[in-house]
């Protein structure tokens, strides 16, 4: 029987007014991959910040025993010196420095204060080999994809002689291929004796690599499941996370599909900086009233680029093609024009493109339709505005103290609901929802699906972009697949399977070209 490398006991952490963690205990066996699950706001990240010294010893109650000795980490340097390294969800790499420079940032390979570049690059190359990266260590971080950046983070952790690696949502921003690679790497590191703690929303990943799962709910440990001893299903984990059985992960929906609302034809888009790169090639999509249309595609397939280029040419250059609304050609060349024609785009990146995080729910809700609230002289009716925000707060079940709450302080699911209320208030005919459930816990996802169904039932056309195939299969009436900027399939839900979609999502360009002939 292996012993515990880490033992956290009775951890209680309070913030002004909030008990974030209450008497949480966590035991991690040496050499295990230990998963931590829980809804957003359950306290997972707080627990990891306690462990890694982001919250210094003394700012919380309880004790941490690491490698059989009680530890009091005062900061991240302390924990890293002990071999505990955390990789945050938002990668902490400096974009204009090289891979090697990033790996040794704060830990420079030096002699008397001068950097030894040969050693830096040589050591970096060795570390890169360990994580399976073949890139040159002098490559700049901006020049490699997110998947590789994640691996550089791990190489950086290895350079610190990591014993316990903590990964916070490591695959959230990765496509399936990169995710698989990353999970494989974690297993490899495991065989080299490195223990990992992985925080993830993706239950299939947990099933694939975790030896044990600890479930946290509302700041308390609910249970720890041994993934080898019991036959643990995804439903079993979900039950622990939400504290109830989800009868179904997707709400039932009987669509009433009407006339065609929006049709895009011969859509071509080029990369804004590299003008020779064609991002979207001759794409054609359409959506009818009451219909939920899915767009499936791997990362880099051009899903977001397609949506944003249609929505007021917000992405790309040299855009050509035609957009028809109810059969009439329309001009969507600027965002205000697109909105006037009844098109809305809810971004995949709420924090960067969706919300004004330092402002309150009211003003975010009214953000794209202020004109509806303005009277003479362009003044906004603040009372009506707050009332409307209050209505959405209630009808979308946004969990916030009041409409005056700052959106930056809400959880991901509630932020997403504010984004949705913003576009629902704008009252568009066609809503393009880009990854509407990314980074949202299971319970809130169900609510988002219900809202999407409700929108369709009101006669709106919904286009939903998602990386999660089960979600597309569970919610959409029809699904397009996108591969390398081309539409490779258009199937009704009844005929779609995950295998079919994946097959068309991975279709290579030459092959699809010959298919079309």
């Amino acid at each position, binding site marked *: 029987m292996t012993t515990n490398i880490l033992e956290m006991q009775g951890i209680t952490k309070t913030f002004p007014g909030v008990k974030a963690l209450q008497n949480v205990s966590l035991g991690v066996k040496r050499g295990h991959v230990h998963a931590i699950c829980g809804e957003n706001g359950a306290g997972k990240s707080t627990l990891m910040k306690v462990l890694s010294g982001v919250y210094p010893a003394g700012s919380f109650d309880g004790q941490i025993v690491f490698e059989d000795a009680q530890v009091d980490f005062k900061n991240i340097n302390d924990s890293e010196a002990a071999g505990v390294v955390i990789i945050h969800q938002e990668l902490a790499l400096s974009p204009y420095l090289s891979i090697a420079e990033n790996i040794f940032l704060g830990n420079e390979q030096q002699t008397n204060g001068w950097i030894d570049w040969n050693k830096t690059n040589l050591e970096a190359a060795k570390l890169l080999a360990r994580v399976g990266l073949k890139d040159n260590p002098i490559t700049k971080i901006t020049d490699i994809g997110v998947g590789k950046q994640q691996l550089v983070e791990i190489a950086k952790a290895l350079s610190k002689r990591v014993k316990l690696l903590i990964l916070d949502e490591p695959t959230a921003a990765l496509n399936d291929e990169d995710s698989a690679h990353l999970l494989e790497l974690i297993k490899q590191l495991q065989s080299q004796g490195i223990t990992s703690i992985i925080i993830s929303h993706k239950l299939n990943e947990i099933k694939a690599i975790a030896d044990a799962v600890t479930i946290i709910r509302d700041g308390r440990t609910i249970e720890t499941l041994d993934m080898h001893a019991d036959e643990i299903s995804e439903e079993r984990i979900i039950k622990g996370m939400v504290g109830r059985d989800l009868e179904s992960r997707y709400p039932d929906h009987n669509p009433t599909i009407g006339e065609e609302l929006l049709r895009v034809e011969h859509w071509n888009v080029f990369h804004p900086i590299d003008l020779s790169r064609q991002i979207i090639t001759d794409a054609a999509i359409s959506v009818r009233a009451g219909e939920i249309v899915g767009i499936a595609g791997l990362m880099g397939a051009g899903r977001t680029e397609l949506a944003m280029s249609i929505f007021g040419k917000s992405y790309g250059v040299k855009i050509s093609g035609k957009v028809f609304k109810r059969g009439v050609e329309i001009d969507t060349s600027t965002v205000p024009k697109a909105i006037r024609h009844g098109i809305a785009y809810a971004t995949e990146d709420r924090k960067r493109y969706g919300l004004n*995080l330092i402002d309150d729910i009211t003003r975010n809700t009214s953000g794209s339709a202020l004109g509806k609230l303005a009277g003479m002289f362009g003044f906004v009716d603040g009372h009506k505005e707050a009332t409307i925000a209050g209505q959405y707060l209630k009808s979308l079940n946004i969990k916030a103290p009041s409409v005056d709450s700052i959106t930056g302080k809400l959880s991901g699911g509630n932020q997403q609901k504010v984004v949705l209320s913003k576009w629902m208030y704008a009252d568009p005919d066609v809503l393009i929802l880009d990854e509407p459930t990314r980074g949202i816990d299971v319970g809130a996802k169900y609510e988002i699906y219900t809202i999407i169904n409700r929108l369709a039932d009101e006669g709106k056309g919904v286009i939903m972009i998602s990386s999660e195939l089960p979600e597309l299969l569970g919610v959409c009436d029809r699904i397009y697949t996108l591969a390398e900027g081309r539409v490779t399939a258009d199937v009704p839900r009844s005929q779609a399977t995950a295998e079919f979609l994946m097959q068309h999502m991975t279709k290579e360009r030459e092959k699809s070209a010959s298919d079309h002939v």
Partner: protein
Amino acid sequence: MTTSNELTKPVSEARKALGYLTGQLRQVGLFLALIVIVLFFQITTHGITLRPINVSNLVIQNSYILILAIGMVMVIIAGHIDLSVGSVVAFVGAMAGVMITEWHIAWPIAIVLCLIIGALVGAWQGFWIAYFRIPAFIVTLAGMLVFRGAAQIALQNQQISPFPEAFRRLGSGFLPSFGTSGYEPLTLILGAVASIVLLFGSLRQRSVRHKYGLESEPLWYFILKLVFAVFLIVYMAFLLASYSGTPIVLVILGVLIVVYAAVMARSVFGRHVYAIGGNLNAAALSGVKTKRVTFLLFVNMGVISALAGLVFTAQLNLASPSAGSGFELDAIAAVFIGGAAVTGGIGTVTGAIIGGLIIGLLNNGMSILGVGTEYQSLIKGLVLLAAVAFDVYNKRRNGGR
């Protein structure tokens, strides 16, 4: 049970009140700081600070910084900055001098032309910032040099003086007086009207909020705030009335504050400025015409700078090539003391005005006390740092995780 409940009730009420106050810490703190500074100088200068003549001078001498602060806070809320306002003040002052004394254009027409020049200056800078996407810092740094040079060229490195009496009233004149002795009646009437408008406006606002079922600030806080504001207005009115009456610049300033506070708090344009500063990308994807808003913001700043330039020139009765140097820094300091965020998205017109008043009071009080300019500068710098440090600390404390 009941007795203990009755005992704890006032305690918890008091705690709730305190909790509300700490939530409003920034707003309340700014006011408290202003009062503390006033009291400090009132005591150390042996009552000179609040003498009618000094209060009148305080308003007049700080008017152009306060005017600039109104435009600057809007620019800063949008996440930009304007370093050129001091030079624009000099340039517009120079043009006013040339137009009035050399070209013999009637002064009211010259004023209009100067405001148009300000708008053109703003349009020039706004074009490069909004449509050419050069950071405002660079464009207005260039503008700082360009318009300083333009002022020197216009004046051929000479000073122009004097200006017609009527024009000078813009900077240092008073509203016509009716009274012969004692309190000047027009000022008292204005004070009374302002108080009544404020009272009814606030009450109406509160009742409408109530009608819509929206949460309002606690009644005691509402009353306290209102009583304090009315007291301030009435007290100011009496002070000014016992001297020469209402300075014309105070009227200009009052109108600007009311109009711009409303624009920023309630107009679609104001909302768009906050949205751009809070999250430019999100604003653009919400259909805000971000370029046009940014452009207009700088046009507005240009007009406001021109107005400040006219007031300053009229007050000094002098158009000088070196006029207005350092004004941009005073205006920016006023905005940040008033609680605006460097990163944009946060700030208010009233905050900037209070920030400007704090700087003005420090200048005025320290001058009366005979503090050397070297120490004045040092102290003002520390006050700016302290104000922003307080902000940052406060944000971190509230920020939780």
